[in-house]
């Protein structure tokens, strides 16, 4: 396409945008004086802005197209290469480990709390990554399992005095059970259909929690959920926050450990095979139903445990914490970070949760930015920030 065409297209786009935003950006009714203000300068700005953005977009698209034509299999990116360097692994772990251990002592309680939230999302992202990144099942109701975990702890504690340490595995188990309950009826569904049904499932759980007052105390939620205790000690508020921080760090490490092992096992390979091609996967002797249910259950487990920690951290939960938006954010962390890649999902979650916290002013544009970033990612870097690299094996070549 010639440059002239490009300019023409961008020009049309800018006119279209001026027209679209005309009622919002140009006309302003002054209700005090009952007059209409015409803010023509806004229109000019929209026009110029749209023109340049459209040019930029086209330029990027073109570069993208050229790039894919030239060389499809450029090697792994710089981050992957760093991750693969064996001699960097140990120092890397030590640095990250020390930083994490010292974090609550260096930074304020406020920051520690934010970090706890972010780490909960890391856990959720890693769990959802099993379902979406590995098994390729688009689950938009994932937050339901988070809710199951949180309410398991809150209710079991309220009625039976179950302590955090017992509730943690129980919450995970119950969430896994719900994963199977959800998974069973959707075994035959794929792609968009699966997404819609799981979305509905998430909303059902939330609506039940909101309306079944006798069971869940409705929108007013459950308060005074105890923080996890250490037997024999009485933790101060600060002490218990630090304690929760270490608990969630330990859980994240545990999650990474387990998921890494699953991914590089017979089970993980079956998931990826299922994602890549359902028919070929079954032709390899893999039971599709079992593989899907496993993914749903094992994905939900982490959300359940994350929910227990969440309830313990906030000491108060209500259905408002478990809306569809949470599912969307968790999904974003997985997609942004890099589907199927553990390091990718971790950085995706940290970025998406921490950035808005520190760029507060930016808060109202958060969703728009998410959307824009995701669209750009999908077009220009569909593998995510840190793309998954498959394991290789050593042989004595004889």
């Amino acid at each position, binding site marked *: 396409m010639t440059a002239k065409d490009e300019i023409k297209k961008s020009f049309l786009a800018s006119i279209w945008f001026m027209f679209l935003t005309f009622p919002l950006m140009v006309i302003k009714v002054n209700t005090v004086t009952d007059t209409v203000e015409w803010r023509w300068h806004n229109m000019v700005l929209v026009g110029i802005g749209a023109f340049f953005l459209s040019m930029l977009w086209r330029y990027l698209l073109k570069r993208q197209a050229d790039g894919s034509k030239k060389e499809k299999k450029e090697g792994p990116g710089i981050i992957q290469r760093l991750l693969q360097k064996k001699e960097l692994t140990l120092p890397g772990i030590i640095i990250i480990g020390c930083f994490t251990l010292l974090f609550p002592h260096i930074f304020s309680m406020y920051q520690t709390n934010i970090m706890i939230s972010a780490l909960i999302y890391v856990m959720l992202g890693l769990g959802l990554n099993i379902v979406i990144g590995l098994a390729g099942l688009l689950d938009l109701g994932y937050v339901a399992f988070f809710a199951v975990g949180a309410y398991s702890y809150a209710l079991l504690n309220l009625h039976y005095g179950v302590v955090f340490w017992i509730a943690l595995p129980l919450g995970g188990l119950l969430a896994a059970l719900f994963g199977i309950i959800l998974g069973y009826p959707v075994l035959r569904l794929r792609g968009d259909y699966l997404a819609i049904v799981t979305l509905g499932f998430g909303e059902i759980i939330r609506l039940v929690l909101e309306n079944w007052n006798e069971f869940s105390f409705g929108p007013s939620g459950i308060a005074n959920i105890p923080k996890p205790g250490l037997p024999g000690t009485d933790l101060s508020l600060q002490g218990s926050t630090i304690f929760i921080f270490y608990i969630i760090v330990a859980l994240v490490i545990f999650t990474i450990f387990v998921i890494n092992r699953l991914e590089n*096992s*017979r089970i993980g390979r079956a998931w990826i095979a299922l994602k890549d091609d359902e028919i070929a996967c079954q032709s*390899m002797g893999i039971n599709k139903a079992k593989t899907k249910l496993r993914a749903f259950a094992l994905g939900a487990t982490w959300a359940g445990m994350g929910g227990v920690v969440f309830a313990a951290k906030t000491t108060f939960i209500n259905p408002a914490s478990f809306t569809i938006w949470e599912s969307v954010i968790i999904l974003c962390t997985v997609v942004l970070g890099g589907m199927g890649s553990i390091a990718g999902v971790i950085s995706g979650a940290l970025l998406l949760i921490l950035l808005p916290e520190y760029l507060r002013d930016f808060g109202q544009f958060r969703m728009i930015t998410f959307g824009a970033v995701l669209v750009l990612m999908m077009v220009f870097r569909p593998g995510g920030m840190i793309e998954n690299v498959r394991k*290789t094996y050593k042989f004595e070549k004889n």
Partner: protein
Amino acid sequence: MKPILEVKNMTMDFGGLRAIDSLDLYINKGEIVALIGPNGAGKTTFFNCITGIYTPTSGDVLINPQGKQERINGLKTNIVTRKGLARTFQNIRLFTSMTVLENVMVGCHAVTHTGVMGAIFRGKSTLAEEKFIVEKSYEILKKIGLEKYVDELAVNLPYGAQRLLEIARAMATDPFLLLLDEPAAGMNPQETAELDELILKIRDNEGISILLIEHDMKLVMSLSERIYVVDYGKKIGEGVPEEIRNNPVVIKAYLGEEIDA
């Protein structure tokens, strides 16, 4: 001895379309048999019916790997694979986000057992099994001649190599019968000649019988001991290559000019 695969009177309807019409077919142990016919004759559908991807409208599929005949129609695809029927796909269906080796490793799924707990704890038996899978897969790749690609992503392979990888992956399921759907499609004459050798080797060295769908008449005539010809879902001819070459119905329906091939 009863044939290792016996299909009796199979019919498959898609709504009003009869894709397979009362077809009978058998394969003896150690045979290489070809199934030929024009495009749309129902050959791929026939594979899909045997392997449980479709359930045939009527008819029977019987296998007999170890001297005991067994009905397999109506069974799920993954069960059929476990019973020892493996296949390749006409429109290549590799696991694109995995390496060549991993593609074959997935094929070992049917003959291994590690579960979730085994995968997490990675105990002795899991490690042993994992080692077995890797070594077995590498062995198969060597037999097929793909070992130089082990760590390559499957999608990055040249077309001919992708077809071979489909065969390697199928072999990893330890089949007694291999169903190949147009394995030479898209290959150049050199690759086809190598494929000819390879298929013979698989039969002779591995003892795997072969049912082959193929359009390349040279390959079909040189490899197969018997040939079935189908058209519009019906069997229109059957016999050794010489008979097929000289069968007027077959010539009219299909072979046409290629009769001298």
